[in-house]
């Protein structure tokens, strides 16, 4: 791997001193984590509101105006809850599992360019790094399932590992089309590459890849209809059945961060990241004043909304159908997409 030297890796001008650079990096990390945490808190709020309105009810209404302070109340409650560790469980692994789950997903945020020139680490294998980190979080789930010494948690962990491994392949393959088109694994380059088209996104030529990516992302983040590892009606709460209080909250956090990361990757790889479609800017030039971060967040929120929308609509898959879908439908389709993209790229 070529990091363009240490300075390039950190994404700073080369003439600043190391000390200043590290401080800048730390500030960036703090900002990203703070923004993400706030987003996670309000993602839960919006999930409850959106699903609530889809289900002809109001959602949280009591804490603050329209229940706006509900996530804070939830956080405080979870923080002060008693932390129960199963007596027969593997204590250290049990405590380590939620930390791994959260930190793996959290570190994936490091390479995501939020707007022009803002990313914590500009590495040229960004996409691979995100895939690696998202599969690392499966370790947290498996460890949680194993160490709880509960059969429901164990089954949940097993299901999760099988599911993550199967869908990891489809997820990776669906992004190969994007890599072929942009010729880079660097997320910044991928966004720039999309600007070459008048519509400014890979979504249109890569519609098949986008579809596969979305389905695999749902499975990767254990969201409905693929929430088998935590299938409430079968496995009580799946791998975190035995968790309570703050450790439970960490898993929750991990799941939501993973959801946000997946939404970000979808936006960067298929929707043109923080850029607006050139054709739109040509027709409505005044849109150029809208900063990139706004575009980026609108697109990310749309994807998060999509997660909620699907959750409110469809039932849960059965385990064997899930596997069949992953191996017999998504992976062949993804391969087909790669072949088609390569041929077109070679021919034109």
């Amino acid at each position, binding site marked *: 791997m070529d990091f363009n030297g240490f300075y390039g890796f950190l994404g700073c001008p080369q003439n600043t001193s190391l000390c200043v650079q590290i401080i800048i990096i730390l500030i960036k990390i703090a900002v990203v984590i703070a923004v993400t945490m706030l987003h996670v808190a309000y993602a839960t709020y919006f999930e409850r509101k959106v699903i609530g309105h889809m289900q002809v009810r109001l959602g949280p209404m009591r804490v603050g105006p329209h229940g706006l302070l509900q996530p804070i109340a939830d956080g405080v409650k979870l923080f002060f809850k008693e932390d129960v560790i199963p007596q027969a469980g593997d204590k250290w692994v049990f405590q380590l599992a939620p930390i791994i789950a959260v930190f793996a997903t959290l570190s994936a945020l490091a390479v995501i360019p939020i707007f022009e020139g803002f990313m914590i680490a500009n590495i040229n294998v960004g996409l691979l790094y995100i895939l690696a980190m998202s599969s690392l979080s499966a370790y947290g789930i498996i460890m949680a399932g194993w160490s709880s010494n509960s059969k429901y948690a164990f089954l949940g962990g097993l299901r999760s590992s099988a599911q993550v491994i199967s869908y990891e392949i489809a997820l990776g393959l669906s992004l190969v089309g994007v890599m072929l088109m942009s010729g880079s694994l660097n997320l910044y380059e991928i966004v720039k590459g999309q600007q070459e088209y008048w519509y400014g996104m890979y979504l249109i030529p890569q519609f098949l890849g986008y579809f596969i990516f979305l389905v695999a992302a749902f499975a990767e983040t254990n969201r409905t209809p693929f929430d088998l590892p935590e299938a409430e009606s079968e496995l009580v709460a799946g791998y975190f059945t035995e968790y309570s209080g703050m450790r439970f909250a960490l898993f929750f956090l991990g799941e939501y961060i993973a959801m946000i990361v997946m939404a970000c990757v979808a936006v960067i790889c298929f929707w043109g990241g923080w850029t607006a479609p050139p054709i739109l800017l040509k027709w409505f030039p005044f849109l150029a004043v809208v900063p990139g971060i706004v575009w980026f967040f609108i697109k990310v929120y749309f994807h998060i909304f999509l997660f909620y929308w699907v959750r409110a609509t469809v*039932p849960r*898959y059965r385990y064997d159908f899930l596997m069949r879908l992953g191996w017999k439908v998504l992976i062949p389709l993804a391969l087909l997409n790669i072949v088609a993209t390569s041929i077109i790229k070679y021919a034109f």
Partner: protein
Amino acid sequence: MAVIKDLKTKEITINMGPQHPATHGVLRLMLELDGETVVKCTPYIGYLHRGTEKLGENKTYATALPLTDRLDYVSSMSNNIGFCVAVEKLLSIKVPERAQYIRTIMAELTRIANHIVWIATHALDIGAMTVFLYSMRDREWILDLYEMTCGARLTVSYPRIGGVRCDVTREFMESCYQFTEEFPEKILQYETLIDKNRIWLQRTVGIGIISPEDAINWGLTGPTLRGSGVPYDVRKFAPYDAYDKVDFEVPIGKNCDVYDRYRCRMDEFRQSVKIIRQCLEKMPEGLVLAPEAPGYDMPAVPPKKPAAPPPKTAEGEAPPPPPPPPPPEETGPVFNELYVATEVPKGELGFYFISDGTGKPYRMRLRAPSFVHAGVLPKLCEGSLVADVIANIGTIDIVLGECDR
């Protein structure tokens, strides 16, 4: 490959319940799993056993009535009606026609309410969360209708031996009519959400198959049996109340699976609406409680002479009638017995009374559909996947209060 052959695999035993989100109460299933496949399924019940049959033996017929509410608490009105129909036949009380129609309306409203709870929980178990809230919203309307008639919403005890407690109001009739107008649209809403959904179809079609012969042999009744294509319905075979005066069909399934049982219940919604509509239109004026209906202080010992002081009725609205116990015999007790079945939403609810001529039943036996249906679970579940166990528990529609009695 020899290494893999030498590996020993072991089934895990999972204790599903009595506290589990999807076992509809306190059902406990011991599942032996080979991976995700169920090798053996053993249901354990009795966590909600309250000894209703024993209690019934120590209460008079009239005071045993509220016990039946607490059996199947999502369709309490049907249980009450079943009990009343049985006791009326035992005491040969003739129910006024208006009361018969009111009870038919109530029984069908209860059928809708029960099937609403069923579709809500069944869909939630399979993972379709929205149906739950849509259908619970509509159940509220039925509970409001209950409240208009008798003030209670869940454990109603509204029917009485010999009729119903009080007459329905004009307001109720109008609201009920409006309900029959609007409810068919609501059914369409549920169907839009799940009927053609591919995941729903995958989860239900071809799951939990039980052939018609097996279904009868296992004693299944109600929609669970009709999903297998057997048109057995007590309302048609032995009509009670006003069921012989209304026109309705008995929907049956074809493929004997979870999906067909679901379709049966969805069609029953429409038939129930049809019955309620007819009852509202045909309902005559008149008394709602038979003059000879027994009161709460139904004598524990039968009056020796016909001129014994008659008990008061609970409401005091009808003139105090003479109680109609079976003719007293001088030579020891004579045991008469009677088995009367009614069609409650879950299946055939049978009351078997042995009467010794006193005001208390000598033996009160309850044939609860949930009890019989829970017994068939091992047959449905063994060999299927864990996820299908959940679908199967949902499809047989059990309430543990009735199962354990």
